[in-house]
């Protein structure tokens, strides 16, 4: 665990200068917020692993078994990636960054905590994971509805997608990885296309049609895919996740997740 904590700290340290590159005050503010949240999360991870080592005598990552320790670690990792109810930092931080750094934040930064989450998945409290997942999907959907800034929109979409990933973690971690990969691909597409068009608000997207029709079509398709519409690829993880949930006799959870996907779809459509 110690090495894991060190890795996460180095990751945070490395990305802080990248985020502070732009000398805009909003960027500095975003950097500070990010640093604070990530440092808190890392400290919590260290605390939880030490507690586990104290009570169980074990530093191994997938042997973490003390219930308080697992809960703390899960919450800390959730804070790191931005799951609800620990998501409040994500929209503002993402808004303060330029699009490339935002891309790195949404995709690369999620990989490390997810690696840890996958490893501890067997011992975590299922109710906690389900709550985190469902809340994230709903918050991601509702929060994005009133947004016009594209980066905040993508932040809320990230929260919603993370919710989907977490909820299937306890049943089939392979699907979490699948969802993560597809999400990274789609978000990268979105960020890169927005960077090419240099637009950060919905209004500026509306003028894009005459400039680059091909790119606009691409953006539209990838937005629909993010929303999870068949027959685009974005539907596949949602479908498989719902299938696993149904197999585990959790139809209500499945229906709630599906309906919250509708919320996200609404703001993608604009």
């Amino acid at each position, binding site marked *: 665990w110690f090495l894991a904590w060190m890795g996460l700290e180095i990751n945070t340290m490395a990305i802080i200068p990248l985020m502070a590159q732009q000398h805009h005050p909003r960027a500095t503010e975003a950097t500070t917020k990010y640093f604070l949240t990530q440092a808190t999360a890392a400290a919590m991870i260290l605390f939880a692993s030490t507690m586990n080592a104290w009570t169980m005598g074990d530093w191994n990552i997938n042997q973490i078994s003390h219930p308080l320790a697992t809960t703390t670690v899960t919450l800390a990792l959730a804070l790191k990636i931005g799951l609800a109810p620990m998501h409040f930092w994500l929209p503002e931080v993402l808004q303060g960054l330029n699009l490339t750094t935002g891309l790195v934040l949404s995709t690369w930064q999620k990989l490390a905590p997810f690696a840890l989450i996958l490893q501890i998945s067997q011992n975590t409290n299922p109710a906690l994971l389900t709550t985190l997942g469902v809340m994230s999907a709903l918050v991601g959907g509702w929060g994005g509805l009133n947004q016009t800034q594209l980066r905040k929109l993508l932040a809320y979409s990230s929260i919603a997608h993370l919710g989907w990933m977490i909820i299937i973690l306890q049943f089939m971690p392979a699907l979490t990885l699948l969802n993560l990969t597809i999400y990274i691909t789609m978000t990268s597409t979105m960020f890169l296309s927005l960077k090419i068009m240099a637009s950060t608000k919905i209004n500026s997207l509306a003028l894009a049609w005459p400039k680059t029709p091909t790119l606009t079509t691409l953006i539209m398709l990838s937005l*629909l895919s993010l929303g999870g*519409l*068949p*027959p*685009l690829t974005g*539907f596949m993880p949602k*479908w498989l996740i*719902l*299938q696993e*949930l*149904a*197999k585990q*006799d959790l*139809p209500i959870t*499945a*229906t709630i997740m*599906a*309906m919250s*996907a*509708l919320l996200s*779809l*609404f703001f993608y*459509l604009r």
Partner: protein
Amino acid sequence: MLKILIPTLMLIPTTWLTPKSWVWTTTTAQSLAIALLSLTWLKWTSETGWSTSGPYMATDPLSTPLLVLTCWLLPLMILASQNHISPEPINRQRSYITLLILLQTFLIMAFGATEIIMFYIMFEATLIPTLIIITRWGNQTERLNAGTYFLFYTLAGSLPLLVALLMTQKDMGTLSMLIIQHTKPTNLLSWGDKIWWVGCLLAFLVKMPLYGVHLWLPKAHVEAPIAGSMVLAAVLLKLGGYGMMRITIMLDPLTKELAYPFIILALWGIIMTGSICLRQTDLKSLIAYSSVSHMGLVAGGILIQTPWGFTGAIILMIAHGLVSSALFCLANTNYERTHSRTLLLTRGLQMILPLMATWWFIANLANLALPPLPNLMGELAIITSLFSWSPWTIVSTGLGTLITAGYSLYMFLMTQRGPTPLHTISLHPSHTREHLLMAMHLIPVLLLVLKPELMWGVCH
């Protein structure tokens, strides 16, 4: 099945590679050839009822009429769109045709699907091209709103369907239609099972549309361009009916009591939407509400689950598909000339466009279910089976038939008879293309009088 799918997909390279002046001609010709090929599906020789099967797709007497209808409509859609798209740059015209072709492919795969999940995916997939057609090429500013209504109504109904289907797969082990028709009836007792039942049907009822959830239809129809309206009215509504017919096989015996509220909604909807038609000023809106009315009859016929009900439902779906599409084309001819859908502005056309008046006449007579046209066959079958299910339904179905006759005649008289307003004297004469379009719509309707077995489906 592949014989039809691959030529349809190959239409996409055709549109993008042919030189500019030949695009419309070649696409129309090729899609017509595909439509004629699809007529070969009408020969049912297999004993199990499913023929032309591949690993995931097959046709049977229930899906074949709808498939042929879909294939037949593609050349007609392309013909109809030719005029209003021609001012646009060539690449946009090509993308429009490509969207129509994509929609066609998804529809063929939906009607030909044997796995219910594949049907579901294709059912959802048809939403995207339709949405793009409505929002990009529609005519008024309300089209964005219409597209949103369309998408969200349909999706809100179909996501519970997905969950319900996945649960079915868990319980039965398979979702193949060939197998499900032979499984034992399941024991459905608890509240959860009732919710599962509603989840299965809700998507199709919204698509049909049922009276209470029909709000998306008038908006979508009015805002869509002509090809969008045609395909919406003719085929997409039938997806809902077809899905319902497939799903109700699995849903017994719970359906006997649970269907009551939906049947009542459907029957009431026939009368209500019919009455709305009598007071409409917008021509396309009138035809849209008449669609809701006919589909209410279809929904009633399917929900009572008798053989005659199913038969009537299929016949009415096919006939309504052709006739509704014809009516939308007629409304479009008016729209292209006056750029207005208001009934009052396009009165008295018989003096100026007499041949078009003939088509108006035939289409309206078909709409009000004149014997011996297939519209009547379908309506009669449904009304009779509803009557045997409960004698009280004759009140609403009879009244509905009367009101349908009322508004169809109203539509005819308003547009054709009466004094011709002065501003319409300078309208363009009818194009041959438009006459061809109408003929190709209405001649199958007349031909089906002679051989209705093609449409009767599984119950004879």
